[in-house]
């Protein structure tokens, strides 16, 4: 199929984009990389009458080192993130998550801001941002807001962004020195959306877990911070018993739906297994790079 008719607005500055969103908030959609929105439009599941296309705003594409966090412009392509030594060193979970996103030609166009604003429950970046306590910067003609990840994701394809707001920047805290990170997922084919995935950042103090941040995708209406499994692991050694308690805690905390690809029970099981694998991999990398 082909998209329905729309008006194509092409701002070249953020200010111009905000004015356009102010004028057309009711009917406009923001076009970022288009790797989710355009398929929806091709199938006419989405029929926005106005598209505000951010692809000609160079100021929205950057990766800046700001001391204790990285600031990533919303239009930064996933491929640029994958190729960034800065991201790999400072925010290894973001790097690892990026490698799990679809395929190279999709990552050529797909953007971090687009993936986060789209808030697909199976997408890697929302879970990653939730695990890392990232902060979203949203702008509108009315001003700027900082929204913590925990308050950003609302449900299936739903965020707390207002209709005239644009996500412009994502601030990701840098990983602690002795930490390791891993994003693991199961999908039917490489590059498909995950049936279940877990991102983990683990800081070790000798044999003991000093800090742990975990979030899952694909197992609920939005990303899920796995607080129960985090509590099991914190201040404990990663023995088989503790790992299997964390696995059970993760499975018990999530409430997935079943669909044609996997039943709810299988997804629940996977949430636990992915948690265990992600924690083991992350702990193995702690102190030793990616």
């Amino acid at each position, binding site marked *: *199929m*082909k*998209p329905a008719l729309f008006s194509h607005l092409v701002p070249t500055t953020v200010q111009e984009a905000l004015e356009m969103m102010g004028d057309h908030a009711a009917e406009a959609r923001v076009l970022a990389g*288009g790797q989710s929105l355009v398929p929806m439009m091709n*199938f006419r599941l989405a029929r926005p009458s106005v598209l505000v296309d951010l692809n000609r705003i160079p100021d929205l594409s950057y990766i800046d080192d700001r001391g204790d966090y990285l600031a990533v412009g919303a239009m930064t392509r996933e491929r640029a993130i994958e190729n960034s030594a800065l991201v790999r060193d400072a925010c290894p979970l973001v790097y690892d998550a990026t490698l799990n996103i679809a395929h190279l*030609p999709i990552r050529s166009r797909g953007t971090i801001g687009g993936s986060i604003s789209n808030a697909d429950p199976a997408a890697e970046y929302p879970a990653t941002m939730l695990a890392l306590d990232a902060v979203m910067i949203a702008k509108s003609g009315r001003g700027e807001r900082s929204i913590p990840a925990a308050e950003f994701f609302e449900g299936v394809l739903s965020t707390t962004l207002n209709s005239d707001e644009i996500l412009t920047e994502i601030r990701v805290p840098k990983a602690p020195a002795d930490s390791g990170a891993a994003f693991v997922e199961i999908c039917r084919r490489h590059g498909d959306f995950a049936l279940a995935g877990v991102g983990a950042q683990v800081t070790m103090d000798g044999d003991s877990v000093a800090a742990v941040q975990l979030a899952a995708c694909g197992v609920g209406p939005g990303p899920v911070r796995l607080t129960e499994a985090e509590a099991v692991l914190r201040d404990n050694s990663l023995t088989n018993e503790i790992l299997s308690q964390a696995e059970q805690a993760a499975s018990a905390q999530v409430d997935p739906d079943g669909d044609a690809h996997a039943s709810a029970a299988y997804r629940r099981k996977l949430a636990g297994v992915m948690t265990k694998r992600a924690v083991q991999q992350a702990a193995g990398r702690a102190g030793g790079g990616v």
Partner: protein
Amino acid sequence: MTDRTSVTITVNGISLTGLAEPRMLLADFLRDELRLTGTHVGCEHGVCGACTVIVDGVAVRSCLMFAVQADGAEIRTIEGLATDGEMHPLQKLFAKHRALQCGFCTPGMLMTAIDLVDSTDDLTEEDIRVGMSAALCRCTGYEGIVNAVAEYAGKVHGKEGVR
């Protein structure tokens, strides 16, 4: 909304201009407006990879981009691979390894492989399998495709083959 605007892109080194409504996909612009029908349209939602072309140096799905977004871009399509009637080395390797049957997926396979190989100089066979999973072949001839891309990667990066 239905107004057609002028879109100029450099395709395989030649500047070409056509008209496009905002909603016209780049794949359809290449095929229907510029009459470059080597780029194939399969699923139209970014899954099959048949429409993959190289835009400003990177492989993209031309079904997930509007033609108006490509105004001013440099695009490489399957038509640009052969030079002076001579097949591109990767095309020759696809023939050598019997890496196609019906050929529908082949334009996307080739453009995907060229970006994959050009952008990474130490590909393993596993990397090639993961990278080429971006394009689907329903004749199921993947073994030949992986072998062709592996030999090409070896040639481009001056090695015997991949690890």
